[in-house]
């Protein structure tokens, strides 16, 4: 009885923290429709800020609390709403969610930068450390009491704010109907800002309370807050009382499990599977169940629709792209040092995992936050299957994981949008905590995945593995293209564009989603199975999946090129951090920063780069010139006329500065052509003519110089060559409003209306 009381108190105080966190999530979701995955990271960052003010600068606790919770947190929340979230009105759910992932990555990077792990960190003390009072014979620490008290106060304040103040009434009006509120003179934007401010403070409060209870560490703080998702879902993302109830139940469940698992009769394992990870996975299990028992959301008509550039990829382009990718890798792989080869190899592994999101997220519009979980399962299957890494075991590993993926995804398939994304998150956490924890999977913390054995070829060097990875990526890319061009591909896109129309035409949405999940799981499994090295469970953790999802969307999740770009960007980020130590800290916030700009460019970066090269690809003559130049530079290196570093600088300048300008150069007037041409020639001469391996001593300086050369000569030549006035390409609806109609506007408008074609 005594024990029960003790654990009830522990449970309620844990639940109190969940309640504070979850109510913040609900407040922002209801007012702006954005589920803030970065909510936990906000709490983490404020816990660190509080620590900085309170323990490092030694200010009194009330001052530190006031500054953190009532000044910095609201400011941060308001800034987030104003500069990041507001731009996301009317974008797809995938983009909205990715931006919060970006924010998440940004804040973790920032915390890593400002408070590096190795810095001597004074202890984070609980409030009134050491003081406790006796409740029914059990000593309850003041910290626990305060935690519990905070939740009660938050509940009361939220109740008053929402029901008794003008702002609260406005908030509830926005929840009911945003457009109607605006028509009636309400200011939804201000309401959202207010909501984000409150939400950040709530996250901050929870973060500080948690840090006192646990430790001041980045990952546990972020993850513990993820547990609160379950409470928010129990509250159906809108009811605060239900959310508080859910949070309480979650806390009690955790405490009681802790109590009974200590008993002698409680089994350590079931059928040889250890139960050690179950406690950590409990909240996500509740999340999973809460999502599944959610009443089925009805198919809706008239949801937000955006046309995304999703042209059917042509076979010719796809095959040419695949061949040139492998050719480039074969060409340059001989020049790379061993460590750079391994880093690039790593980039290709990321790219394959990113590719697994193309059919699922890019084509079918279903968000998964668990791509690496499937890669991890693939790695395990490959290492456990007999055959020591031959092609048959690879095929078997892919098939097994695809089937497992489909079976596990089956219950979640009736979900969509944010709920599906959260279900995949719950799945990822459950697998990391329970499956990857078993003696049968990652017995000693890491396992060795055998290198793929292909008949007649020995793949033993890192270089051979890199080439193998590029071949595998190309093949998988071609498979993805084949899927898009098939009957299934059209169904996937139809599912994304209008689930309701697809259903009324006779398509089983569940079966289509199932196919998308199976394909995606299979591709991810292939990436894992090709690891060919020692791997650890941490590599496949949920938190590692988030940057992958983010960079997939940044690169452009609806194309194979976008996946390659995103994957290499993620790999390149770590390359940059290793070779240029001065920008190491910047690379920590890099992925987050590029992701935050997604609101402006939802198509992804690959599409934008593609646009820059479009004039080039339309003229075979120019492609030939561009290719000849690249081969020429490579030949100079192969014949050892120039050094590897000069080859690197010259290739980058040729590809990024010269090639995109070729079309403009050809069409420019003779004088401009001469000036721009000479300018580019000087650039190439500097890049290739100087031996950079001796001229500059550090790798970082060489890379910065390369970027400088590209900017100076590329942009310079573009300015000179493009004498034609910029064609004003606005939306046809706006033509004539901000500038007079031009000939082009009229043609464009006629085309759009369908008058002429």
């Amino acid at each position, binding site marked *: 009885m005594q024990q029960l009381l003790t654990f009830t108190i522990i449970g309620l105080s844990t639940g109190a923290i969940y309640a504070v966190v979850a109510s913040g999530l609900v407040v922002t979701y209801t007012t702006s429709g954005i589920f803030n995955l970065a909510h936990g990271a906000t709490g983490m960052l404020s816990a660190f800020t509080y620590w900085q003010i309170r323990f490092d600068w030694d200010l009194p606790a009330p001052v530190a609390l006031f500054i953190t919770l009532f000044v910095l947190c609201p400011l941060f929340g308001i800034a987030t709403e104003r500069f990041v979230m507001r731009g996301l009105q009317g974008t797809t759910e995938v983009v909205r969610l990715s931006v919060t992932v970006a924010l998440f990555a940004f804040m973790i990077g920032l915390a890593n930068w400002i408070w590096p792990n190795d810095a001597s960190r004074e202890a984070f003390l609980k409030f009134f450390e050491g003081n406790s009072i006796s409740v029914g014979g059990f000593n309850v620490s003041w910290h626990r009491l305060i935690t519990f008290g905070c939740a009660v106060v938050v509940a009361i304040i939220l109740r008053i704010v929402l029901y008794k103040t003008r702002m609260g009434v406005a908030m509830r009006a926005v929840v009911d109907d945003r457009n109607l509120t605006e028509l009636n003179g309400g200011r939804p934007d201000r309401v959202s800002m207010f909501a984000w401010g409150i939400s950040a403070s709530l996250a901050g409060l929870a973060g500080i309370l948690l840090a006192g209870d646990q430790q001041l560490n980045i990952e546990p703080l972020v993850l513990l807050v993820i547990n609160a998702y379950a409470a928010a879902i129990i509250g159906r993302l809108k009811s605060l009382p239900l959310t508080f109830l859910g949070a309480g139940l979650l806390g009690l469940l955790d405490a009681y499990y802790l109590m009974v698992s200590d008993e002698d009769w409680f089994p350590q394992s079931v059928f040889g599977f250890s139960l050690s990870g179950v406690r950590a996975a409990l909240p996500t299990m509740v999340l999973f169940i809460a999502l599944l028992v959610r009443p089925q959301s*009805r*198919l809706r*008509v*008239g949801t937000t*629709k*955006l*046309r*995304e*550039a*999703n042209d*059917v990829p042509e076979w010719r382009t796809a095959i040419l792209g695949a061949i040139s990718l492998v050719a480039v890798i074969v060409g340059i792989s001989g020049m790379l040092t061993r460590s750079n080869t391994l880093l690039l190899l790593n980039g290709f592994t990321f790219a394959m995992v990113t590719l697994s999101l193309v059919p699922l997220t890019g084509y079918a519009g279903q968000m998964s936050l668990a791509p690496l979980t499937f890669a991890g399962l693939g790695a395990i299957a490959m290492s456990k299957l007999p055959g020591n890494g031959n092609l048959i075991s690879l095929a078997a590993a892919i098939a097994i994981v695809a089937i497992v993926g489909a079976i596990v995804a089956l219950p979640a398939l009736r979900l969509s949008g944010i709920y599906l994304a959260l279900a995949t998150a719950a799945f990822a956490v459950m697998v990391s905590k329970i499956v990857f924890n078993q003696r049968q999977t990652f017995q000693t913390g890491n396992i060795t995945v055998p290198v793929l054995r292909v008949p007649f070829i020995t793949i033993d060097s890192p270089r051979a593995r890199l080439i193998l990875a590029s071949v595998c990526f190309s093949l998988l890319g071609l498979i993805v293209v084949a899927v898009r061009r098939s*009957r299934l591909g*059209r*169904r996937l*896109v*139809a599912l*994304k*564009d*209008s689930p*309701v*129309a*697809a*259903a*009324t*035409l*006779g*398509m*089983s*949405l569940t079966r289509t989603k199932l196919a998308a999940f199976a394909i995606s799981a299979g591709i991810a499994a292939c990436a894992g199975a090709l690891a060919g090295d020692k791997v650890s469970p941490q590599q496949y953790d949920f938190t590692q999946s988030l940057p992958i999802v983010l960079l997939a969307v940044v690169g452009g999740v609806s194309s194979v090129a976008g996946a390659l770009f995103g994957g290499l960007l993620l790999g390149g980020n770590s390359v940059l951090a290793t070779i240029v130590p001065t920008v190491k800290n910047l690379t920590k916030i890099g992925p987050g920063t590029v992701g935050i700009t997604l609101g402006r460019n939802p198509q992804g970066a690959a599409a934008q780069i593609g646009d820059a090269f479009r004039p080039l690809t339309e003229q075979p003559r120019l492609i030939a010139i561009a290719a000849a130049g690249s081969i020429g530079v490579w030949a100079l290196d192969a014949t050892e006329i120039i050094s590897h570093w000069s080859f690197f600088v010259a290739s980058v300048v040729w590809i990024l500065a010269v090639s995109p300008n070729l079309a403009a150069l050809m069409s420019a007037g003779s004088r401009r052509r001469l000036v721009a041409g000479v300018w580019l020639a000087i650039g190439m001469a500097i890049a290739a003519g100087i031996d950079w391996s001796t001229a500059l001593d550090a790798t970082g300086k060489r890379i910065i110089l390369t970027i400088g050369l590209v900017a100076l000569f590329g942009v310079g030549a573009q300015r000179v060559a493009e004498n034609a006035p910029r064609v004003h390409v606005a939306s046809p609806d706006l033509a004539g409003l901000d500038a007079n109609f031009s000939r082009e506007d009229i043609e464009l408008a006629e085309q*759009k*209306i*369908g008058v002429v*074609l």
Partner: protein
Amino acid sequence: MPLLEIRGVMVRFGGVMAVGGVDLDAEAGQVTGLIGPNGAGKTTLFNVISGMQEPTAGQVFVGGVDITRQAPHRRAKRGLARTFQRLEVFSSLTVRDNVRVATELTTILDVSSRVDALLERVGLSHLADFPAGDLPTGSARLVEIARALATEPRLLLLDEPASGLDDSETERLGRLLRELATDGLGVLLVEHDMGLVMRVCDHIHVLDLGNIIARGTPNEIQNDGAVLQAYLGTT
């Protein structure tokens, strides 16, 4: 036996009775009109028939089979197809692929020639390779009709197909509907263009505030006192 039978269908949203116990039949080979002022419950009734809204009470039969609890995609297999008042084209697919997806859900034979024939029939051949999301409303409505026809339905539900169409397109739509009826299809038409409704319908049901207030031929409806009152208010 009528192709579509609606028996006592009632839909209640909280305290609002959107549809209050409606009985309605639609015959094969006929165009059946469903008209009524805004908010009469026409679209709600459509949603009940196509499975996007579960009725509070009542049953829906197609060809004598009770489909009230079937999932939308199963109803499609029973020969039900619909278009939407608020457009639901697959906006990132081309016009051709919009129709193709639907055709492929029905058959695996002669897909291309069937698609081409359908595009020809609704007059969209010249826009076949255009992304459907870029089309003006009128053409997009035709895409929805072609797509619905691609599933080879027995009963076609059209929700305001003429809104956004110009006069000649409306004329053409009217002819198409008559042709479809001649081919033996049942068509249930919700439409505000009274000229079109009176021209093409064999039978008309008038819905007001969730209840049928009149039924009959176009001629009878035009002279019905209750209908005039519903549309023009008490005089």
